[in-house]
């Protein structure tokens, strides 16, 4: 099979980008989408043209590095998979495939299809953890966790941090990501002492990064490679409201919330 690739090319953060169209060499339907890009890049390099920069690493859907918007949909046409798990059999011979980077103010483009997602890291620096010193932990079975809670926490914890939720949301909102993080820890007994502090701090950082708000359209969960439910957003909304109402009597004035 052969396809036409209409792809976003942008030299760096400061230079405006534009679409360019390339004709692919002969492809195979068993190729992954990223292998198709490899083949096109090899072809471009052999013609002396700079290859298309794209993010990728594990290529098995778990590291969360790959990030292409394919025909307007983050991670391509199939549900519950990342770009690297999208195969060319999902496309037809002769198709024109439009490939773009994640688009969000909080995810500036570094080059071509590569974006800067460090905003996600900063949100987690703000509170995405349980404060436990190495060596201070009690026996692992000392605190029991109902299976139901552990399973739900795991549903949230599966997030691979790819940013597709932001890319898909019409508001470029990071709510699904932050909610998954907040819920993973908030569902476990170990995460209770910092539950309120965590949600306040993480939401504050999320807002500062320039993500939009949630309109509950559900497009985030539709593209999430781990199919994380927006019900976690409601859970975070609940936690945040509770934390706001309770406040912290010992916080310095002006710091609450």
């Amino acid at each position: 099979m052969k396809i036409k690739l209409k792809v976003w090319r942008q030299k760096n953060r400061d230079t405006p980008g534009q679409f360019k169209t390339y004709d692919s060499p002969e492809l195979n339907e068993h190729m992954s989408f990223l292998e198709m890009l490899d083949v096109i890049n090899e072809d471009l390099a052999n013609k002396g043209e700079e290859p298309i920069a794209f993010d990728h690493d594990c290529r098995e859907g778990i590291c969360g590095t790959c990030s292409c918007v394919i025909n307007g949909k983050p991670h391509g046409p199939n549900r519950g998979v990342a770009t690297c798990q999208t195969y060319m059999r999902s496309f037809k011979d002769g198709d024109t495939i439009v490939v773009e980077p994640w688009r969000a103010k909080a995810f500036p483009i570094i080059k071509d299809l590569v974006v800067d997602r460090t905003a996600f890291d900063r949100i987690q620096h703000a509170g995405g953890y349980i404060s436990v010193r190495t060596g201070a932990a009690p026996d692992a079975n000392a605190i029991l966790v109902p299976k139901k809670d552990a399973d739900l926490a795991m549903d949230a914890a599966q997030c691979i941090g790819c940013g597709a939720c932001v890319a898909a949301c019409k508001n470029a909102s990071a709510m699904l990501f932050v909610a998954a993080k907040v819920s993973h820890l908030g569902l476990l007994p170990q995460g209770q002492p910092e539950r309120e502090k965590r949600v306040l701090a993480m939401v504050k950082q999320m807002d500062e990064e320039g993500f939009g708000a949630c309109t509950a359209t559900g497009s985030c969960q539709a593209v999430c490679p781990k199919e994380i439910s927006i019900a976690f957003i409601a859970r975070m909304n609940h936690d945040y409201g509770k934390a706001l109402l309770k406040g912290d009597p010992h916080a310095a004035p002006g710091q609450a919330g």
Partner: protein
Amino acid sequence: MAVLNSNIPPGPLAEKWEQYKFNTKLINPANKRKYKVIVVGAGLAGASAAATLAELGYEVHNFVFHDSPRRAHSVAAQGGINAAKNYPNDGDSVYRLFYDTIKGGDFRSREANVYRLAEVSLNIIDQCVAQGVPFAREYGGFLDNRSFGGAQVSRTFYARGQTGQQLLIGAYSALNKMIGAHAVKSYTHAEMLDLVVVNGHAKGIIVRHLETGAITRHNADAIVLATGGYGNVYNLSTLARNSNATAIWRAYKRGACFANPCYTQIHPTCIPVSGDYQSKLTLMSESLRNDGRVWVPKKKEDCKKRPRDIPEADRDYYLERMYAAFGNLAPRDVSSRAAKQVCDEGRGIGPSGLGVYLDFADAIQRLGEGKVRERYGNLFAMYHEITNEDAYHTPMRIYPAVHYTMGGLWVDYNLMSNLPGLFVLGEANFSDHGANRLGASALMQGLADGYFVIPATISAYLASQNPGQRPPVEHDAFRAAEADVQAIITKLMNSKGKHTPTSFHRRLGKIMWDHCGMARTKAGLEAGIKHIIALRDEYWREVNVLGAANDWNQALELANRVADYLELGELMCRDALHREESCGAHFREEYQYTTADPEVQNGLVNVGDVKRRDDVFAYVAGWEYPGTTEKAPVLNKEPLVYEAAHMSTRSYKV
């Protein structure tokens, strides 16, 4: 010649670690903050080390080439993590985990390190649970365990099929806490390209920022490398595409010894290669072998038939036939080699003839499709995504693929290399898995090294260094190292050849797989070395790197890494050539059991099983860089002494 002193503390095996910790010099809290430690990598070992060292009060700088520390390839581990908790009360103990690991490693690992690993495995689970790792639970709220990778006890803790991911998120969250507290400075998109050695001590690194191409110098009182394995020498492997050997290889070229480079684990259950364009091989969790049966047709002519058309009588369930006691659960190296053997006989299946069936028909009949779906649904779905085949109705096709490298930089009991001040953790070092690693042990080692070992052992070294006295980045050694890095980049950018780095990588991978893969021979390895040297020459003449050096340039990144693979591949072949025995994953065709051996006659092993030569090769081979790739590397030996475990023939047959 380097001196490889293992520095194993005295005393009985079970007391060494406690005694060691008590006897190690501590550093007072006021002085700790004057020591700066660089941690390269943020996988399980790197992230846990960086977080814990920062908690202790050291100034920690962490470097990753990823855009975020959370992307390290530990994230991809599926199955689980071992710990000798003995929660199921099925006879496990620290000693049993220790012994299984030593035996699994075919008596080529260091006893004291392995014992310590088994000991701290207990603390790892506690730590991870406290951090919020959502391990699988039973209905009573207690942690669930499963048997994994051929172990006869259930000691594996797991979080669905994403244990590595969850443990990494745990370690990453510990790191986040310390970054948030400004106790760790995190550098992302920052790739280490050289080690700086000052007066024989590791005191800094040279880093290239992947976005801007800026080369920077970073000094420290100690350097910790936790940069993972080097399986991508083979091009096709289950590793992430960007995992690479550059950090450890450049450290090797600065004087750190490289131990047992030829020990490469080939994982038996991966999806077979489908074409030349292939960039990556996907591992299917080993847990599939708990219920799947491995077979190939008895007759070559049947190989192209549809599996359902091959009658039961014409199928060879070769693992069950060869290893009655373990059957389909035989260890990874044994299963992989058996698959190769049947394919070499011409009985391989699939389009390439390099594949065997993993069949769930019996399991579906016994348990029902629902139960099988419940256990392995996500794996079957993944298989379907990749191959477009439905494994509920037709057997999976699997073939071995490069998965893990047991070799790595040589370290002593302190996890310090022969270069003082250079510590190496996790898959990047060689220490704990001998010649073969057991399933669910890599995660255990990474976290053991990072959370519990390095925080205790680094103080022994730092106490010998005056606080605040690390050499400045203006030191000549830094200037020289930066110039060397710059020279390589300039050479690559100026080479106006015709071929991409990718094409060389592919060709090197083929040489390595053919000559230094699952079965090795003297002639094959010698030929491999010749091919690699020739390819390396061609590389520097013919490689073509487009784009600019001061820009985001993935071709340049790869070119740098392939340059190192082209040297490391040769060393792997040399190590495999020198080791004239078979052990664990290292299989030399010249050294295998035959019908003439008494072990075969009395049914302990099969014909074709690995034959160790403990009298000659019971040592760690620590290769030392002679200063140029023109000369052969220098072999240093660390003898392996077993005090508690007795070297015995590793049998999985009875």
